[in-house]
């Protein structure tokens, strides 16, 4: 693999027009990835999902070279019609369209970053892989006091041109004081057996609001890793909603740094899994300042021989007095072969805090099924109704009414 990485990297650099500074950073990132390789179960964070093994088993040999010079056709039919929205269309990791038609153009600043986010984390070599092979990083800056009028939908499309390929993509958002944005991240996969590695950075300044809804519904055989890093200053709010269902393997990782007082982070997630699918949500909420708040609710419905994993960590620094942290994960196992693993973790160094977590897993409540059946529903409908209610709880947490309605229809929950 090492040789393949090196030759693909050289090819990639020669085919692109990166500056010397970028090439330097990319080389450094590649060296870090070469040193560590794909993460395996030996690392605590990857204990329940050995991505090294999963890639080997499902894909085998990966191609790291991805030609960003190819122009991809976009079929306009895939766009959401129910709501007016701005668009970013990404095909096979390349940004094909940036369209902010509903917004005031002088309030948004679009640039590409030369000094992209450089994290050399030995525990997460995938970030290094992303840094070394991703195309130019777009930076979207929302200026002071500006709120997006319409949501931004990020369409992440893959087409049949890629196969057994590693696609790396990264995007950065900078929210200035008092600004706000609503994002829906929608994947539309028409490819097979690729490893898709996404990295999103959000920087929230004072009073900024981020609402981020991530939807992975369409059935596909890709393996995906999605990392969101959110940094929050005073009084800012972030809301992350994850619906994870369609891909063969998906790990969503959300890392929140609450650096300013009165900042709060909400992370809600749903796993609806069947077949052999294996999905994981891992959260890392760092309370670094006084009076910060975090809330997490994760629910899984697991059928066939699928596997759902939740790893959540709340870290409270000794400075972060008056922290309010909450974490709840629940799972319903529908099949004998299904599996749920959880590791809800608290690491606390301050005494005046309110932190709790809970986790429960089991089968659907027989009494509830009996109750519904005694009222004339057949068993299948009764079960569906219960699952519906179980998941609706999470969807109801979405604070934007328009998007909530849209997503309910999309997911099929009413």
């Amino acid at each position, binding site marked *: 693999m090492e040789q393949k990485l090196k030759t693909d990297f050289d090819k990639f650099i020669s085919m692109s027009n990166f500056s010397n500074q970028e090439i330097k950073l990319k080389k450094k990132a590649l060296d870090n990835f070469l040193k560590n390789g794909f993460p395996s179960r030996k690392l605590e964070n990857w204990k329940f999902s050995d991505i090294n093994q999963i890639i080997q088993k499902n894909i085998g040999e990966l191609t790291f070279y991805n030609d960003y010079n190819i122009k991809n056709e976009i079929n306009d039919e895939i766009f959401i019609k129910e709501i007016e929205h701005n668009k970013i269309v990404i095909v096979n990791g390349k940004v094909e369209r940036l369209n902010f038609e509903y917004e005031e153009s002088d309030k948004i600043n679009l640039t590409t970053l030369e000094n992209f986010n450089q994290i050399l984390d030995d525990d997460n070599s995938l970030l290094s892989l992303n840094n070394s092979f991703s195309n130019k990083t777009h930076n979207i800056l929302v200026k002071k006091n500006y709120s997006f009028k319409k949501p931004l939908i990020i369409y992440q499309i893959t087409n049949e041109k890629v196969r057994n390929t590693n696609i790396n993509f990264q995007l950065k958002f900078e929210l200035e004081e008092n600004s706000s944005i609503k994002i829906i991240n929608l994947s539309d996969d028409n490819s097979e057996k690729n490893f898709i590695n996404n990295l999103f950075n959000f920087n929230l300044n004072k009073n900024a609001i981020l609402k981020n809804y991530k939807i992975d519904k369409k059935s596909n055989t890709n393996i995906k890793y999605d990392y969101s890093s959110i940094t929050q200053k005073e009084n800012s709010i972030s809301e992350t909603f994850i619906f994870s269902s369609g891909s063969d393997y998906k790990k969503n990782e959300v890392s929140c740094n609450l650096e300013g007082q009165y900042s709060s982070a909400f992370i809600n997630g749903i796993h609806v899994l069947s077949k052999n699918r294996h999905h994981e949500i891992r959260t890392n909420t760092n309370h670094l300042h006084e009076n910060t708040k975090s809330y997490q609710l994760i629910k899984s419905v697991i059928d066939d021989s699928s596997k759902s994993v939740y790893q959540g960590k709340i870290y409270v620094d000794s400075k972060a007095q008056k922290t309010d942290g909450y974490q709840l994960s629940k799972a319903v196992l529908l099949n*004998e072969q299904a599996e749920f693993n959880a590791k809800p*973790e*608290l690491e*606390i160094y301050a005494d005046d805090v*309110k932190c*709790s*977590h809970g*986790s429960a897993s089991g089968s659907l409540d027989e009494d509830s099924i009996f109750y519904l059946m005694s009222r004339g529903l057949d068993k299948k409908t009764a079960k569906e109704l219960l699952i519906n209610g179980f998941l609706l709880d999470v969807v109801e947490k979405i604070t934007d009414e328009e998007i909530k309605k849209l997503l309910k229809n999309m997911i099929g929950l009413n």
Partner: protein
Amino acid sequence: MRDKQIEDLKDYKYGFSTDIESYKAPKGLNENVIRFISNIKKEPDWLLQWRLKAFERLKVLKEPNWQKPKYPKIDYQDLYYYSAPKSFKEKPKNLEDLDPKLLETYKKLGIPLQEQKRLNGIAVDAVFDSVSVATTFKDTLTEKGIIFCSISEAIQKHPDLVKKYLGSVIPITDHFFATLNSAVFTDGSFVYIPPNVKCPMELSTYFRINASDTGQFERTLIIADKGSYVSYLEGCTAPMRDENQLHAANVELIALDDAEIKYSTVQNWYPGDKDGKGGIYNFVTKRGLCKGKNSKISWTQVETGSAITWKYPSCILKGDNSIGEFYSIAITNNHQKADTGTKMIHLGKNTKSKIISKGISAGKSDMTYRGLVDISKNAVNSTNYTQCDSLLMGNKCGAHTVPYIKNKNSNSNIAHEATTSKISEDQLHYCQQRGLNQEEAVGLIVNGFCKEVLQQLPMEFAVEAQKLVGISLEGSVG
């Protein structure tokens, strides 16, 4: 042959003292030392081979390092692995020679003078280090057919039982410290309860650490045959000491059909001084196997001592309808560190487990609850309930919860809850208003916090433990 071996060993370059009163194996860990221990205890050949096999395994094993509390590297070649009773010349002559702080603690715990002397090896009674203290109540127990003796004695008198069960729960291929114990264990307790016998009294042994630089490697084996019941108490105190001492005991419990074992521990070893100097490293492997149907194993522990406590008393619920329970109070103060919890491994049908863990950290200490609940595919209709609460005193300490939950069975239920909080000003104010001073008030509130676990302890123990809870937290408020 064996005599020759001893003869050979005597020529070992560090030499042996022939003085029976201070009989020590030379420092270091090697095959000769293991042969020496085995020889001196007149062990049968199979046990020697067993130890050597463990030692072979130990050579390839690495010390685990995933735990939260880190400690300086232990030089295993710099430890004594066997020391017989010390000469009385080396021991303190009377209580006045002891550290006054230690005496104060004894006084608060209400330990009788005679007992205090015994604990410090002053009394003229035979007091031993690694060799088990003579056990009492023997007659009553013999009448019922209960075997309660040191494991060395059991190896001589009941080799079949020992051979059958030793290492059946903690195999020699287990983790580093367990394997180390298998290779060099010196003594410990052995309990066998015959079928359908309810042990009429609480069985108890005081383990002690006395000789300087002596790693303590006890081995306890408790077997409850069909339909029997036993409650076993383990309590520990250690004298003031400066060097860190390693304690890597192995405890194996086996419950056959319809049997129940209740194992209670109050651990109050020397935790090091205020600045975190000295103290015991308590790296103990405790594991119970619910082998038979309807069997039950219950662990209760009050952990207040040791510089580092690193243990996970576990239950393997193999028999159908078996039950595993774990009740724990862990208190850390000053620079103490604890990483403790349990593992509940559900293998049989209709198995149940319950975990109640209360962690209290004060001063500059660090406390971690780490637990595993694993429900396998075949463990139909199993349930687990876990509750782990942490109480923090001050903002220089840490409290962490790391539960691992694995559910592979759709007919099983797992529920886990955890909270972290501090003693509220209101509660303190209320108690102080009623005439308690601040320390008494804290003691009262903490005892209330721990009540669920304290209730599980046998009567005599509960009283001692309650006092211990208060004493451990002294100086942590204000």
